[in-house]
């Protein structure tokens, strides 16, 4: 054994940077959430400003909370713990700082482009292609820095927290790249490489696993470091760590299709999504069990230590939402919950409870160590804990009841066989009291976050003039590994397997470990992706389905720009109450030219899959100008700017050309898209005048959107299409 000892220091300056970014973006993300909650309670809070409308701000809220708040929290904890768990400074301070500033620049770019309406219309993957490329570059820099650190470690084996970081870094990169593949049609405009059913599949493969590998596995990594540190107790079970780690990594990937139950996605995919979600229940709970049981013998500390209080409630929230996830993925439960606020409540149990409280606890633990001063006030941290917990309770209680109420109203029939609540707005009105309670709950959570920020700020103010940089000593890893405590190898294959000696070996071979993670993720992904793309019968062709006209295409892009998909689905499920309410259920073949798909995930307003031809053009015009003039009590904001802005006819050709690159058969529109668009716009304008509306609309953006809406759901009613359901209700 070598007697040589290295002396080195950890880079805590980068941890401090990420910590401040976490706090600042957290406040921004929460406030954006409060604003959109207010907009649902009263549309007056859209302020009649295009870039402040719900459709544009909802993605800003989700992106800010997930990638800015939770993202920076992950980096804070990972940069702190990785160095210590591997007994080495980060591989490169330069890469650390590139990662930090690059990530913040991406967040700023998101905060500017999303309100401007630049979006890919895929949930949590809204950012347009230049920003996507930047994300990939920064993520790769982070990966190089992280794996470089592993390569330089002075600890032979990698600890479970590191396993979770590895899985997160690898999988997020794969998900991000393959879901965002697209063809640009301008600097901030692109069309997804995939269409319709396949695009939906890829999106929820990504979307579900963003929850898994951005909001779950990295936070489990944080939990495995900060929980035993704060509790000063050993982790409950090493074997449980192994089993729940690998089962999470492998099983999670399959579960994405449960976001698409009863849609045009083929049944087999939907079923796999459900079954793997059910199997995920215990692997997820493995994290909860290991976290909570680590506190055995230390529960008395929870009463005195706010950090542990935050951790306990965070892990409990994790347990609740990972029970609820499998439950919601059961098809019959999903039929009720899908498109309602139930899902919103579910994700907020996770985000406010698990991610939020774990982050707060972690920062309270880190602040005195990073700022080298005692926490300003333990009492305020306690106050924060109680306010935040109560706020979460109010929020989710209100929104669970809202979701279940609306789900039940949608499916209710009266004794004459008619829908009991045929007026969609009536079902929205029922939710208003709950929406106000949510506003109160969210406000409490934000008050808590402000107290938190103040507490950390005051702690920082008490810091020493210059931070002390403690030097650490550790021997370098010898070239050859010698097991100093060889465990006896049990006889028998099963005993050898359960003794986990093989896994111990993987832990000292991080390259092998990483390869195994990649294999698990890729095998699970391909098992569903390959059949989705190759089996033709998944998407039976419908002869009458044609590409959108150039005007409809640009109208669709306006629908995307305004974020209409955030409130309106375009997917009638084969459920009797839905076909009664909206018309014939949606067929997979109807979406073959939909780059991207726009099925939506929440019905704040009615489904639009069959809205074509339901109302006259003039109705749509008046409705965009002022929705409440036609639909009393509507909470949709007005879109007067669509009526005022001139449509960019000349820009249409580039859009059509990009679609042609994706294989959409555009025929003569390849050459003269603007002319075709102008001709169709003139027709719409003339119909508006004929109906008694104002002249001059044919040059405005609104005509394109009207043309698109009037097309929706019409193709299968043409000859050669599927026969329409006998008289659906309006």
């Amino acid at each position, binding site marked *: 054994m070598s007697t040589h000892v290295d002396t080195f220091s950890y880079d805590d300056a980068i941890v401090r940077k990420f910590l401040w970014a976490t706090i600042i973006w957290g406040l921004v993300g929460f406030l954006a959430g409060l604003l959109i909650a207010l907009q649902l309670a009263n549309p007056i809070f859209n302020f009649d400003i295009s870039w402040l409308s719900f459709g544009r701000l909802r993605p800003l809220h989700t992106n800010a909370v997930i990638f800015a708040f939770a993202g920076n929290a992950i980096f804070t904890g990972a940069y702190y713990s990785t160095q210590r768990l591997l007994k080495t400074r980060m591989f490169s301070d330069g890469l650390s700082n590139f990662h930090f500033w690059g990530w913040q620049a991406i967040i700023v770019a998101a905060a500017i482009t999303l309100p401007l309406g630049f979006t890919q219309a895929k949930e949590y993957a809204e950012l347009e292609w230049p920003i996507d490329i930047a994300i990939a570059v920064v993520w790769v820099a982070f990966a190089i820095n992280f794996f470089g650190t592993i390569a330089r470690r002075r600890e032979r084996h990698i600890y479970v927290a590191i396993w979770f970081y590895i899985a997160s870094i690898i999988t997020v990169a794969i998900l991000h790249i393959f879901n965002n593949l697209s063809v640009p049609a301008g600097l901030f405009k692109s069309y997804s490489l995939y269409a319709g059913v396949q695009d939906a599949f890829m999106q929820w493969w990504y979307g579900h696993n963003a929850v898994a590998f951005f909001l779950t596995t990295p936070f489990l990594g944080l939990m495995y470091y900060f929980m035993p*540190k704060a509790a000063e107790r050993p982790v409950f*079970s*090493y074997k*449980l760590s192994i089993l729940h780690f690998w089962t999470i990594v492998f099983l999670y990937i399959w579960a994405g299709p449960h976001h698409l139950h009863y849609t045009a996605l083929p049944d087999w995919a939907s079923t796999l999504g459900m*079954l793997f979600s059910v199997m995920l229940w215990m692997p997820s709970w*493995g994290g909860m069990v290991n976290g909570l049981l680590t506190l055995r013998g230390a529960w008395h500390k929870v009463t005195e230590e706010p950090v542990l209080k935050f951790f306990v409630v965070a892990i409990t929230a994790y347990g609740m939402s990972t029970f609820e996830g499998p439950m919601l993925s059961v098809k019959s439960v999903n039929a009720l919950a899908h498109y309602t606020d139930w899902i919103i409540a579910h994700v907020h149990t996770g985000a406010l409870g698990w991610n939020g409280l774990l982050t707060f606890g972690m920062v309270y633990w880190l602040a005195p160590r990073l700022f080298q001063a005692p926490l300003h006030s333990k009492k305020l941290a306690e106050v924060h804990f109680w306010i935040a917990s109560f706020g979460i309770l109010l929020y989710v209680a209100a929104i669970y009841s809202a979701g279940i109420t609306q789900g039940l109203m949608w499916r209710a029939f009266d004794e004459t066989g008619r829908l009991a609540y045929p007026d969609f707005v009536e079902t929205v009105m029922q939710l208003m009291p709950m929406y106000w309670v949510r506003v109160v709950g969210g406000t409490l959570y934000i008050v808590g976050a402000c107290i938190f920020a103040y507490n950390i700020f005051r702690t920082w103010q008490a810091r020493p003039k210059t931070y002390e940089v403690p030097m650490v000593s550790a021997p370098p890893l010898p070239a050859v590994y010698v097991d100093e405590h060889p465990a006896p190898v049990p006889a028998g294959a099963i005993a050898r397997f359960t003794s986990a000696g093989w896994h111990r070996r993987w832990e000292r071979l991080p390259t092998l470990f990483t390869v195994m993670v990649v294999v698990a993720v890729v095998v699970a992904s391909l098992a569903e992706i390959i059949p989705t793309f190759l089996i033709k019968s998944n998407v039976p062709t419908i002869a009458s389905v044609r590409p959108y006209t150039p005007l409809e295409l640009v109208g669709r892009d306006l629908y995307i720009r305004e974020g209409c998909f955030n409130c309106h689905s375009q997917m009638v499920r084969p459920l009797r109450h839905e076909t009664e309410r909206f018309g014939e259920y949606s067929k997979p073949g109807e979406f073959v030219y939909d780059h991207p798909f726009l099925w939506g995930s929440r019905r704040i307003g009615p489904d639009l899959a069959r809205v074509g031809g339901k109302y006259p053009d003039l109705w749509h015009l008046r409705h965009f100008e002022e929705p409440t003039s036609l639909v009393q009590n509507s909470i949709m904001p007005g879109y007067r700017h669509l009526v005022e802005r001139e449509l960019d006819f000349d820009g249409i050709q580039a859009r059509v050309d990009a679609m042609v690159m994706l294989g959409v058969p555009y025929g003569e529109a390849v050459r003269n898209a603007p002319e075709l668009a102008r001709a169709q716009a003139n027709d719409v304008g003339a119909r508006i005048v004929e109906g008694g509306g104002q002249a001059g609309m044919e040059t405005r953006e609104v005509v394109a959107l009207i043309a698109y809406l009037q097309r929706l759901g019409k193709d299968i009613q043409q000859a050669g299409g599927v026969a329409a359901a006998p008289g659906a209700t*309006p």
Partner: protein
Amino acid sequence: MADKSQHEDKLLEHEYDGIREYDNPMPRWWLWTFYATILFVPLYYLLPHPFGEGDGNVAEYEASVAAARAAMPEQVAPTVTDEQLVALQGDRAVLAEGKAVYETNCAACHRADGGGLIGPNLTDDAWIHGGSPTQIHHTIAVGVLAKGMPPWERLLRPEQVNAVTAYVLSLVGTNPPNPKPPEGPAPATGT
């Protein structure tokens, strides 16, 4: 699994930044529940609907539609005559109901006072689809899909359709301000 007591809280040798781990076995309830969820997979494919997969979403949907039809045979709305509809105008309760139905469903396109907006003026003598009480009743009940007029009988009960017809009849001749110009022929019989 090895005997529980033997393994209880035995610390493993390794240590990371002060963090130790126990060699505890996985909790039995946890492991057995996990096995049960795995067993659920073959069971789900074997069991019939509603416990298992069944024939798929579309088949289930079609069965539910057929079941609903069987339970609720097509109701033929009782026919109404011109005289009955005219007589309903004298019933204040019916008119009040008709007004409520009108304000919720019709006012958006025909204006609250019936003067016409996106839909035609209902207060003049001109009727695009016929101006007799039963013709108006028919237009409301069946709709004019090509022009965006929905078939209201699917949403409204027969007595509600009658009531709103009576209310519309009561609007004729009210001369609201700024009406939409008359569309369609005036009835040959005159007023």
